[in-house]
């Protein structure tokens, strides 16, 4: 496995929402990259801008309230933000596809599974109905749905939650995309099915050598699937690095708080740690470091200065100059 060439490169992306006079800075200058053959995770609390960044990669931000203010999204050499609607439709599904959070509502209730998978294929590749049917059967086989010929004639309400999510993954795979964006695909499922879906995503990623951008708030899932992790907080990336670096030597107090609040067997009988407070309203963010009101390590300068990314070791960066003094940091 080589993860060298960047496939998707998001640079200083800013997405703001205009809401009753207030300007909600949902995504406030994030940069990350997904390399070929790699699984990258975006982690963060609810409302920190994970889903908005995913949707803006595909150009699916509803434009009257939302607006991409700045930044670029480079996908295999072209800037997706500059592309017009026609060209974007060719990218969506064909080169980048997406798996949504709620498999129940993401499938159209009035069409059969076969119709919906077939349409996903047919939109980008015109093939004969016979071949299309065979291809759909093949896809359902790949995502581990038993007796696919019969299931193709079923309506979404006839399937269980896990099967629906498998169908969603099959639709995302339909055109053999280079990148799959999975937006909390296991949140609505129970734990045993969650494990199956994650195993499925991993095996598919290996088999088809795709990249996966996995969005989650579940650190347990992230540690199982990710090559690299970006931790988001209030619309910015606060820490990034390889999975080991993040989970073993977290350098940002927010990441440490998240890790400390994970239940584990060694903490048996003790009270779970929790980070006090909640995510700031994206329209009224605190000055300086957005995390400082909730941070137990905050010093005076945190309130005024927006922290820069500090290098800790190879590929490992965090936006906190206070907790661990990085190499070469003066002040």
């Amino acid at each position, binding site marked *: 496995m080589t993860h060298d060439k960047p496939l998707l490169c998001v640079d200083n992306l800013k997405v703001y929402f205009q809401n009753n006079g207030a300007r909600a800075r949902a995504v406030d200058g994030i940069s990350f990259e997904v390399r070929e053959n790699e699984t990258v995770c975006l982690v963060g609390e609810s409302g920190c801008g994970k889903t908005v960044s995913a949707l803006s990669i595909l150009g699916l931000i509803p434009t009257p309230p939302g607006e991409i203010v700045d930044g670029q999204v480079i996908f295999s050499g072209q800037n997706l933000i500059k592309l017009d609607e026609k060209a974007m439709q060719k990218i969506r599904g064909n080169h980048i596809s997406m798996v949504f959070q709620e498999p129940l509502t993401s499938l159209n209730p009035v069409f059969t599974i076969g119709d919906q998978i077939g*349409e996903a294929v047919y939109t980008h590749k015109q093939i004969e109905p016979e071949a299309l049917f065979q291809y759909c059967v093949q896809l359902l086989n790949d995502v581990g749905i038993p007796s696919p010929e019969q299931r193709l004639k079923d309506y979404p309400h006839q399937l269980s939650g896990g099967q629906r999510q498998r169908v969603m993954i099959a639709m995302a795979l339909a055109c053999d995309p280079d990148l799959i964006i999975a937006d909390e695909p296991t949140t609505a499922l129970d734990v045993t099915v969650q494990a*199956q879906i994650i195993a499925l995503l991993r095996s598919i990623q290996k088999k088809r050598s795709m990249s996966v951008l996995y969005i989650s708030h579940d650190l347990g899932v992230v540690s199982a699937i990710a090559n690299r992790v970006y931790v988001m907080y209030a619309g910015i990336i606060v820490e990034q690095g390889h999975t080991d670096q993040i989970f073993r030597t977290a350098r940002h107090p927010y990441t440490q708080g998240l890790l400390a609040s994970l239940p584990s067997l060694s903490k048996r009988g003790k009270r779970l740690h929790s980070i006090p407070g909640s995510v700031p309203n994206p329209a009224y963010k605190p000055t300086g470091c957005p995390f400082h009101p909730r941070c137990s390590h905050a010093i005076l300068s945190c309130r005024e200065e927006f922290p820069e990314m500090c290098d800790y070791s190879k590929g490992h960066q965090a936006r906190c100059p206070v907790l661990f003094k990085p190499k070469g940091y003066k002040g």
Partner: protein
Amino acid sequence: MNMEKKDFLKDSYIEPPLAPKQTQMQEFRRLFGQNRLAILGLFIFILFFFCAVTGLFLTSGSRPFFDPAMVRLQEKLRPPLAKPHLDSLQPEEVPALNVYLMGTDDLGRDVFARMLQGAWVSLTVGFVAVGISVLIGIFMGGIAGYFGQHYIRLDHILLTLALILAAGLIIVKFAFIGTMILLLCLAYIFYSLFARHASTKKETLVLKTMLHINAVSVDTLIMRIVDIMLCFPSFFLILTVVALLPASIYNIMIVIGLTSWMGTTRFVRAEFLSLREQDFVAAAKALGISNFRIIFRHIMPNAVAPVLVSATIGIASAILTEAGLSFLGFGVPPPHATWGNILSNGKNFIFDAPWLTFIPGITILIVVLSFNLFGEGLRDILNPKLRERH
């Protein structure tokens, strides 16, 4: 034993398919079966449909089985179920089945044959008019609901108004002024298409920004047009239009259709407003499916239930409107029978020959009532909130 256990584990990895208790069709049938009035309505509707279609074949052609136009002056105003006086009739004048099932009118024409002929008119008027209104309604409602938040630029509105003005002027024979306005519009279109970045002078820029102001949203535009259309007293509008146009059944269908699409538009828009926020629409977009395909293939089937209900009730009101127009003498021209003009003829003899008014009147009542009952039954079934708890 060990092998079996392993197989069992392997199978349990894939969750077993869940069979639903009822498919949607089965549930629909069960609920429909409980609604007796809706069944009655459907039954009468099917009977009416059958009568209208067979009536078309039995009353048309050069020698029809039931002849609605055969005048027998010696046999006028015979009551229903009367036997014809065979001695005073030519062989070709004898009615089919040798009986006047619904009597004869003041010219001795067989009312049963005329009712059959009128049934086809009512059926086609009902369906074609509602078809037109539903098509317009779905299109307008779909656009208003899905693209509602988009804005239309001032110059586009002005351009449309100018084009309409030009067409109007040309039609009322101010051809020169009309053509000039038309040419101006074309010049502006070419200018905005090809010379967009040509001039950078300050005055033109100010003018340009003024013209490019977002004037109204698509939603506002369409829904205000709907409000305006609803303000017209539609029956009088229809009367005026029908009085101006040549009397023909097709004109009546089109006019009724064009003045009754507003309800459907409102229904469809309301459904779209909630459906376009659903995840499956976002999922369809993420698969790169085009907007029009999403509107008409993905959202529309989900929004069709209220449209179906309003269309069923719309057929009833279209039949009623056509009967009213024929009664007033604005409908289908005379030799052709419709329920409205049978009623209109009969009113002169209401004390001598009451069947001439009661037969078409009660038939209209029953057919309209059956459509309304069927439509309301459908609404109760398709809308779970209105459904009684069983």
